[in-house]
């Protein structure tokens, strides 16, 4: 049974249509949700974290319906959630904050709860600063406090909204290591605007754009979407509809070939830009 199925999910906020018929099916493993700002990633994650109800569509999480109060409770008992803008109580220490969330997660026995708090703080390398007030922690440390609270109780489904924001390269590597280990048994759904995160974590990628699912599959299949449409050149062709510069300084043109350009193997970044940018439509691209 899939961990999550969402079929034709729609959600509006006033006149703003955030999700316009999203379909996803998630099994155990790591799923990267990619999309530019405003694509609907956070709204989809909030719905899958049972924080928001969908206006329309059918959502099943861990075999249950989040629309029913009792089933929603059962989902929440097996869920870990890191919101995008998680605020922390600044006068709390990291330990106090995670302990507080552990109480919200029904860990009532103090001894076993504190053991669990120590465990998750150790997982995110925060043991040393566990008793420092949050207002004195760096941005990366605060993000890790947020991650620690999501890990309480070893949830079956982890929903992480932009978990790598604010982490330095070393912390990001450590995060990927941790999430990879969790993803061997559990389902980890994480949103990011960094294709690099998804490429490194492998598994499964979903691309959202303007509230719709534009791709759902393996990272390597995402790269294949742009096959035959990526041209490398030393200089930017000003007529190109979409061109970006890779780490080596080469301009990668997506779409029509510029002069003196060579057709190259597409990467996931190329395909993502093709889907999310002002380039030809994906239907056109794969045709």
């Amino acid at each position, binding site marked *: 049974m899939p961990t999550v199925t969402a079929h034709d999910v729609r959600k509006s*906020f006033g006149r*703003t249509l*955030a999700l316009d018929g999203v379909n996803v099916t998630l099994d155990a493993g790591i799923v990267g949700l990619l999309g530019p700002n405003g694509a609907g990633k*956070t*709204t989809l994650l*909030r719905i899958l*974290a*049972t*924080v*928001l*109800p969908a206006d329309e569509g059918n959502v099943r999480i861990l075999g249950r319906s989040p629309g029913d*109060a009792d089933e*929603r*409770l059962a989902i*929440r*008992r097996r*869920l870990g*959630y890191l*919101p995008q803008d*998680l*605020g*922390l*109580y600044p006068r*709390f*220490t990291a*330990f*106090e*904050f995670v*302990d*507080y*969330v552990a*109480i*919200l*997660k*029904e*860990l*009532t026995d*103090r*001894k076993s*709860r*504190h053991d669990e*708090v*120590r465990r998750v703080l150790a997982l995110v390398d925060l043991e040393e600063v*566990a*008793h420092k007030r949050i207002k004195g922690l760096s941005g990366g440390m605060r993000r890790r406090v947020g991650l620690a*609270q999501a890990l309480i109780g070893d949830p079956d489904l982890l*929903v992480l909204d932009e978990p790598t924001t604010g982490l330095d390269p070393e912390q990001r590597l450590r995060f990927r290591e941790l999430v990879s280990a969790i993803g061997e048994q559990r389902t980890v759904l994480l949103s990011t605007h960094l294709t690099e995160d998804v490429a490194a974590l492998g598994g499964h990628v979903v691309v959202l754009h303007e509230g719709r699912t534009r791709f759902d599959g393996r990272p390597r299949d995402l790269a294949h979407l742009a096959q035959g449409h990526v041209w490398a050149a030393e200089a930017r062709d000003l007529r190109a509809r979409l061109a970006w510069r890779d780490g080596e300084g080469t301009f990668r043109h997506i779409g029509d070939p510029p002069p003196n350009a060579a057709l190259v193997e597409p990467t996931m970044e190329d395909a993502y830009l093709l889907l999310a940018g002002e380039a030809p439509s994906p239907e056109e691209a794969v045709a």
Partner: protein
Amino acid sequence: MSAPWHADHELLARYRDGRLDVAGAFSVETHLSACAGCRATAGTLVEPERLRQVWDAVADDVDRPPQTVAERSLCRLGAAEHTARLLAVTPALTLPWMTAVAFVLAFVAASAHLRPYSIVAFLLLAPLVPLAGVATAFGPGLDPAYEVGVAAPVRGFRLLLLRAAAVLVVSLAIVSGAALLLPGLGFTAVAWVLPALAVTAAGLAAATVLQPTHAAIATGGVWALVPLGVGLASSQPLAAFGSVAQLVAVGVAVAAAAVVVARADTFDVGGWTGP
């Protein structure tokens, strides 16, 4: 220079059992901190289970978060430690909030000795204290970890009731204290109680439709207009606190409480959250 000494088995056993006097125990502890050999011997004299318990107790003591005044009070009333902890992030139960409210109300109540119309101001202000306290106890915008709480299995409605009850009790106590400063100590000293309950319940009922802070502002606005309007219309400043008005307050409180219970599920999902 004296010869080095070591704690023998018998001495360590007496230390373990607490059979040494203060000076003896002090000497053993001083020595153990400097002698790895005697520490190792002492370790073999204690049951591993007891060591584990001692270590757990130390870890628990170090890690246990300090309790706020509200938490301690709730625990004294018999609540569990984890239940009381749920009050720790309620702004209206913090000392700065309570002090500020007490100061303002005491000032208004005391000024009624000089300006009788300040009694009306006091009666208008009093119900806003629990309303504001409850509104800031939950909801997006004011609770930075609001979404984590919504996604957690603890029932939102239970959390709301617990915090609302605590805020209400504390607010009523503060306002009652300030009311003692009113001149005359007549009916006006208690005329605010039922309106306070009605306004707080109405604020919660409105929060089943609006975001909690917006609901509180709307309810507070309506409340401020009612006594002023009634007072102006009847030319009696305290007309809105008479016996009929008190009965109306009871009716509003009951009706609003019924709405809150009927729509309890609203507090379980973050329906107020925007995109």
